[in-house]
C-alpha cells in the first residue's frame, strides 16, 4: 500500500523512494537477515566429517542444548547479566541526579567524561581493569599502603578470575549505557510536576516514588535493555576476567564455532540465546504494560 502511494506519484518520487529505501534494505538483508537465516539453517543441520555440514533438518542440536550443562551456563549468563543491570541501575540513579543538579557548563564536561571510555578499545580497557584488580594491582597496593600506615597486616585480596570480577567488568563497561538514557529522561523533567506533588503534601521521597519514577520508566527500561542484552552476550569480559568456571554462553558458542568446530551446535545455541532474549523482553514489556493499567 505504501509503495502504491509512491507509484501513484510521478517517476521522480519513485526514484527518491528507491534511493532512500534501497540501501538500508539491502544492508539489512545482506548483513542481518541473511546471516541469521544461515544460522537458523545451520542449527537444523549436522556435522559430517571434519568440515562438511549436511542440511538435513534435524532437531538434534536443540536437544543437545537442553542438556543441564548448557542450561546451567544459560542460567548463569542470565544471573550475571541481571546482576549487572541491577547494579548499573542502582549506581546510575544518584549519578544522574547529581548531574541534573550541577551547573550547565559542568554538565557537558561530566557527560563528555562519561563518554570518554568509548574512545578506548574494549580490550585495552579490560586489560587496564586487570592491572587495577590483580593481586599486585593498584587496588591491592592501595589497600596495602593504607594498612601499612595503620600498622595492620594485609593479605592481598583475590579480585580477579571469579564471577565478581566479571560483574565488576561488565558494570564498568555498561554503566554509560544506563546513565545516558536515564539522564535524558530526567533532564527534561517538568519541575512543576515535582512542585505540584510537593505542594499537595508529598515528601521528597514520595515525589520520586509517585511522580518521577513512573514518568521516567521508559528511559529506565531503555537503559536496562541497553545493558542487559549486551551483558547477556558478552564474550571478552568473562574470557579475560572470569575464572576457569567463568564461562558464559557467548564463550561456549565461540568454542563451538572455533575449537570444537561444531557449527551446527554453535548455531543452535545462538538461536536459543536469541529466542530467550526476545522472550525475556516480551515478558518484561507485558509486565510493564500490566502495571500501567
Amino acid at each position: 500500500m505504501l509503495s502504491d502511494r509512491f507509484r501513484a506519484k510521478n517517476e521522480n518520487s519513485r526514484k527518491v523512494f528507491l534511493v532512500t529505501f534501497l540501501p538500508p534494505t539491502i544492508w539489512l538483508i545482506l548483513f542481518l537477515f541473511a546471516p541469521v537465516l544461515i544460522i537458523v539453517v545451520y542449527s537444523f543441520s549436522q556435522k559430517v566429517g571434519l568440515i562438511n555440514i549436511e542440511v538435513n533438518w534435524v532437531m538434534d542440536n536443540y536437544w543437545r542444548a537442553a542438556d543441564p550443562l548448557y542450561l546451567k551456563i544459560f542460567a548463569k549468563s542470565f544471573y550475571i547479566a541481571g546482576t549487572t543491570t541491577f547494579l548499573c541501575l542502582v549506581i546510575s540513579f544518584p549519578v544522574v541526579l547529581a548531574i541534573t543538579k550541577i551547573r550547565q557548563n559542568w554538565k557537558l564536561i561530566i557527560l563528555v567524561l562519561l563518554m570518554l571510555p568509548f574512545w578506548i578499545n574494549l580490550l585495552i580497557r579490560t586489560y587496564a581493569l586487570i592491572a587495577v584488580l590483580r593481586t599486585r594491582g593498584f587496588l591491592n597496593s592501595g589497600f596495602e599502603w593504607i594498612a601499612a600506615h595503620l600498622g595492620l597486616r594485609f593479605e592481598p585480596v583475590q579480585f580477579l578470575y571469579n564471577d565478581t570480577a566479571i560483574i565488576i567488568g561488565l558494570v564498568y563497561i555498561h554503566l554509560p549505557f544506563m546513565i545516558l538514557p536515564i539522564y535524558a529522561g530526567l533532564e527534561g523533567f517538568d519541575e512543576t510536576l515535582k512542585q505540584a506533588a510537593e505542594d499537595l503534601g508529598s515528601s521528597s521521597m514520595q515525589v520520586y516514588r509517585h511522580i518521577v519514577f513512573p514518568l521516567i520508566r521508559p528511559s529506565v527500561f531503555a537503559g536496562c535493555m541497553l545493558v542487559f542484552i549486551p551483558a547477556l552476550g558478552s564474550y571478552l569480559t568473562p574470557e579475560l576476567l572470569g575464572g576457569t568456571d567463568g564461562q558464559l554462553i557467548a564463550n561456549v558458542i565461540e568454542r563451538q564455532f572455533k575449537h570444537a568446530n561444531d557449527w551446527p551446535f554453535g548455531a543452535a545455541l545462538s538461536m536459543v540465546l536469541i529466542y530467550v532474549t526476545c522472550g525475556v523482553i516480551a515478558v518484561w514489556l507485558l509486565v510493564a504494560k500490566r502495571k500501567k493499567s
Partner: protein
Amino acid sequence: MSAPLISLQGLSKSFQGNDAVKFVDLTVDKGEFYGILGPSGCGKTTLLKMIAGLEEPSAGRVIIDGLDMSPVPANRRPVNTVFQSYAIFPHMSLEDNISYGLKLKGIGSGELKKRVLDMLDVVDLKGLERRWPDQLSGGQLQRVALARALIMQPKVVLLDEPLAALDAKLRETMKYELVKIQKEIGITFIMVTHDQQEALSMMDKIAVMNEGRIQQVDQPNLLYEKPKNLFVANFIGSANCLMGRVAKVEKGRTHVMLADLNQEIIAFSCENFKVSDRVQVIIRPEKLTFQDIELPSNHEKTINRVSGKLLEIIYHGGVSTFRVGFKNKNLKPLIVSQLNDDQQTKDGYRIGSHVEVCWRLDAATLVPVI
C-alpha cells in the same frame, strides 16, 4: 477587625544578587479574592512561590493564620497552588490526580470517593473521573488543577496566571467561573496575573507590583480612579499624563501650572501638596470630553479646558478614541475616548480641526513626581 489570614512581612528574594522581590508587606483577609498584578518579570510569581514554600525567602516572613511559616516546608503548609502550566500528573487518571493529596493524608477510600465526587460537581467535571489527562481540553485541565487544590481544603489557594494558557473565549467563561467557585466555597484565593482586565473584573483587592515592589494596594475601582503613581495609572487602563508644578493650594483644590502648555488647571486632591511641588496630572481618556458643560452655578470654575488639534480618530465599535495634539509637538497627544451613541461625536469632528478638550475638576488625579 480580625487578624489577617496571611501577612507578609518584609518578604524579599534575590537570585544571584538580583532582587526579584523587595521588602513586600501585604495582608490578606479571610475569604478575599486577592490579586497580585504586575508586568512579567516583576516578581509576582516568586512572591507566590514563597507563600507556597516552593521558594525560600532571602529575608522576611510569611505568616499564615498567625503562624510563622519559615520552618514549615511546602508539603506541610495549609496552602495549595494552581500552577500556570496546570502540572497535571500525566500518568494518573483525572480521579487519581484530584485525590492525590487526600490519599497522602491517609483519607479512607469511602470518604475519598465522596469528596472527589463533590469536588467534580463543584468544578463541573462530573462523569469524567476515569479520563486521562491527554483526553482533556485546556479548560478541563484547568478545572482539574483547581479541584486538586480545592479538595485539600487549604486556608489559601494560590493561582499562578491560571487563565493565561486558555484561549480568549474560554478565558472569559473561566473568569466568572473562578469567581463563582471562590464565593461559593469561601476559601481565600491569591491570584497572580499580568492582565489588568482580569484583575479588575475578578478580584476584591489588588496589589500592583513592579520591579519587585508593591506599588499600590486597593480595591479595583480605587486603583483605577485614584492611582497613587504613574506606573499604576499606566498599567491599569490607559491614562493621559500632564506634567506640572503646584501653583496654589486651597481647601482641597490644588492649582497646577502646566509649564508645557503655559496654562493653569485645578484638581481636587486629598493629598497634601505644597506650592512648587512637581506633580503629574493623570486623566483617564473617558473622562475627557469635547463638550462644554460648564455649570453656571456659583462663580467657581467646574471644568478644566485645554485646546489642541484633532490628529486622529480611531473607531473601536462601541467607542472611538481621538488623539488630540498640542502646539508643542514634543508633548504626547491626549487620548480622548467617547461613546459612539452620540451623533455629534460621529459627525462633528474632522481631523485637523481645532478642538477644546474639557474635564471636570474631580476627574483628574494628582500624583507626586519623585
